[in-house]
């Protein structure tokens, strides 16, 4: 099967108009010596019927599908209203590119403007961009932005920030003369404020922390921001579970200067890690240093309201090597999904959704905590995820739970050796009381 729309007759006539005998002649400028002289070694073409069989057969090898899952750690299974899939599948949204021609892109542009507004409302900050790749690269971009804003070259990064986000930040800053120092956490799972005090100095561009952090624990954003500001450093809050913002006070209202993170929770399937949706909001004085596309409101020549991509002098296609970031394409379709999701849930719905997460997680923490051999590990307040410690090694418990059709959580020991047998358990609104009880019973069996 091919997607070519020309007949043999078309092809012949077109070659005649061009004035060449055969298609091969059009490739005359490619040196003969390097041309591929054999067919590519790829499987034979498949019809749609065969393709569906092939791909579904590969899909069946994902043994995890259909199991009862309590995995989180930056990727969350949430309710996705049917309108999100339905509306976002429209060809008018799926098949255009970046709205370079605003007169024929008002749909995408108005939606980006609504997205930016919603992100500002969620984060409590003045301005937001139209998306970034994901939470991990968003965090790296925030670090580079803090360096540009402050002219300082050191960042203090919380150990309780998603381990993969920290790895990405390290990869990005390695060649740019930025030093990252790590600040640990206390027994409550929150940032160790004494250690932070020692690490924060006048060379620090920012304190970068996640809340709720990787252990699900809600940080004291106000105190962290005050500590940063006392040294004229920026307070950079990372949010990996965007649903939490339906309930928790907006980080911007608590002193955060930049809020970045992952909005996968807002209408995007877990989909093995991508595509996801990075977002970034900041105070308006940092506007010129913000990376990524931004949509602005304007008028057309007849005085009607319209929207355009704006402030592109920050961007690579104008400023080339002096741009704020090399980002060109962002995640527009994911931002569209999140916009439909947020507007569908609305003012009441998103709040209720967030409360159900918190209440179910609290029930699960209490229920699992009562199982012999299970201990709550970090004592700080949590949103929809929490760490427990097991009396037996996690890999064996994990396997035994899987045999009972349950993925019980994410073992923390590999990324945090100091937490030994701790496991991160996420409970969203999709988990029922019956399912939580099932996990508790299974753990009881496995640990006894």
């Amino acid at each position: 099967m091919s997607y070519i729309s020309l007949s043999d007759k078309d092809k012949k006539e077109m070659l005649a108009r061009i004035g060449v005998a055969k298609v091969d002649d059009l490739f005359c400028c490619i040196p003969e010596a390097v041309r591929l002289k054999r067919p590519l070694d790829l499987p034979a073409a498949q019809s749609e019927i065969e393709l569906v069989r092939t791909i579904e057969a590969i899909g069946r090898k994902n043994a995890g599908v259909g199991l009862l899952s309590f995995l989180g750690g930056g990727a969350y299974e949430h309710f996705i209203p049917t309108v999100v899939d339905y509306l976002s599948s429209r060809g008018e949204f799926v098949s255009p590119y970046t709205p370079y021609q605003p007169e024929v892109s008002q749909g995408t542009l108005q939606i980006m403007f609504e997205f930016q507004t919603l992100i500002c409302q969620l984060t409590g900050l003045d301005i937001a961009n139209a998306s970034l790749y994901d939470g991990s690269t968003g965090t790296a971009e925030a670090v580079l932005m803090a360096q540009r804003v402050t002219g300082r070259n050191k960042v203090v990064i919380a150990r309780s920030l998603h381990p993969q986000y920290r790895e990405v930040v390290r990869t990005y800053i390695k060649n740019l003369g930025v030093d990252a120092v790590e600040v640990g956490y206390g027994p409550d799972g929150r940032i160790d404020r004494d250690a932070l005090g020692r690490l924060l100095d006048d060379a620090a561009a920012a304190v970068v922390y996640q809340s709720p952090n990787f252990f699900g624990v809600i940080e004291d954003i106000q105190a962290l921001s005050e500590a940063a500001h006392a040294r004229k450093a920026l307070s950079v809050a990372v949010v990996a579970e965007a649903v939490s913002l339906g309930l928790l006070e907006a980080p911007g209202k608590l002193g955060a200067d930049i809020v970045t993170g992952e909005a996968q929770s807002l209408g995007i399937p877990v989909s093995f890690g991508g595509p996801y949706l990075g977002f970034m909001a900041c105070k308006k004085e940092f506007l010129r240093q913000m990376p990524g596309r931004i949509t602005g409101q304007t008028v057309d020549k007849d005085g009607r309201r319209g929207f355009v991509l704006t402030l592109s002098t920050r961007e690579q296609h104008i400023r080339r090597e002096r741009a704020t970031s090399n980002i060109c394409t962002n995640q527009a379709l994911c931002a569209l999904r999140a916009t439909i999701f947020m507007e569908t849930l609305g003012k009441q719905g998103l709040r209720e959704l967030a409360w159900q997460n918190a209440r179910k997680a609290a029930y699960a923490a209490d229920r699992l905590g009562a199982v012999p051999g299970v201990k709550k590990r970090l004592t700080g307040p949590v949103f929809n995820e929490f760490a427990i410690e097991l009396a037996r090694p996690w890999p064996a418990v994990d396997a035994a739970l899987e045999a009972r059709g349950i993925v019980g959580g994410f073992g923390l020991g590999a990324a945090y050796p100091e937490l030994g047998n701790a496991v991160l358990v996420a409970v969203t609104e999709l988990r029922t009381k019956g399912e939580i009880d099932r996990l508790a019973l299974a753990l009881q069996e496995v640990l006894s």
Partner: protein
Amino acid sequence: MIKEIREPLIFEISEAGKRAAELPPLDVPERKGLLAGVPLRSELEGFPEVSETEITRHFTRLSQKNYCVDLGLYPLGSCTMKYNPKVNERLSAHPAFAGSHPLAPVELIQGNLEVLKTLEGFLCEIAGMDAFTLQPVAGAHGELTGMMLIRAALEARGDARKHVLIPDSAHGTNPSSAHICGYTVKEIKSNENGTIDLASLEQAMDGEVAALMVTNPNTLGVFESDICRIAEIIHAKGGFVYMDGANMNALTGIVRPGDMGVDVMHINLHKTFSTPHGGGGPGSGPVGVKKELIPFLPVPIIVEKAGRYALDFNRPRSIGRVRAYFGNFSVIVRALCYILTLGPKGIREIAEFAVLNANYVRKSLEGEFHLKYATPSMHECVFSDKFQKEFGVTNLDIAKRLIDFGMHPPTMSFPLIVHGALMIEPTETESRRDLDMFIDAMKTIAKEAKENPEILHAAPHVTYVSRLDEVAAAKFPVLRWEKKA
């Protein structure tokens, strides 16, 4: 008729008490004093309250204010706006993939790892490279990853070097990506054919240069015929050749970058491999490398033993992760579906018909529009507004007038070496009928430019909004809706 409906912002139609989603009642007992002492919101201030009907109308109406590939020709040069096969949408959204968690243990994600490993292998074969990483999620992200790999390899040899050479015809992301990797950029001038000037290149290349970033075919749609000699010049002084694969659509099955001296490259799955552009993402920018650079690839690497897949994190020389998890996985599934559908012959036909269509457009418009470089075109052709400028008409006017004819305009913002550029990339999936409609429209516009330039200055005439004031948007930024005081 529908165009006449002015669709307000959702915030402007919101009314207290409406809703479009309900949750089941809470089924767990409530813990008393939950989150006591944690600062909570009193409400989601400003969030809209609307019904599901209103949501559906809002987004359906907004969708109709977009132009898209499903509607017609979208000849945006260097963006490869080809048709997006629908079965790939369905399969990438299959619950076996969409419901699969990135932190699940490897024994539960064998299918996903097979998808990744299989596509890596296909891309190696198509590009002639030794290994691919699928972690980068956009072309620019791939460029950055590629430059980091080069830097790591040079550091391992003892010297990271200082500069990166980039031709003046390059896409803007190239210099920016090199800069973020800690390199200064040296521009290489093009010659009268629009290709890299070998004498300038030889002069610029020395032991301080880490790499050349070359797009081939370049942004003029011209193949760098001296590519092998170019690679020799770079390699002789210990540098690497990076190829921006944005224009790979001209080469599939015809020639492989790995066979012409390229050491590192990225491929845009959302261009060459038909995954949708989504109004500006998500994309995917896998990076291919030659053997020497394999030790530096991002972690984890997928390894296969006797049909079982595992993740290898123990890669001490790796540059580290460039993104959390495994890249834009569902985009990767679509690209895999595309290659399986096309097979070896179909993959070669991509390039054959892309180049045929571009040359057909070029031949049909030669004489009507100025062609700065007479060098043969590959998958795109770059005209300019030089002839029309005589009548005070610019490429912007031409672009906006094309919209009236029901087509998307070409790229205008680059290449920087062609003033008033009209960079046209029809892609292989266009029909003769659509190509001819475009050619006729362009010819009519060329005529109008002479006879009635006013109609061009005032274009577009038939859109939801007329020409927008972009200067005012940047000068007085309004970047969000706010409740009227």
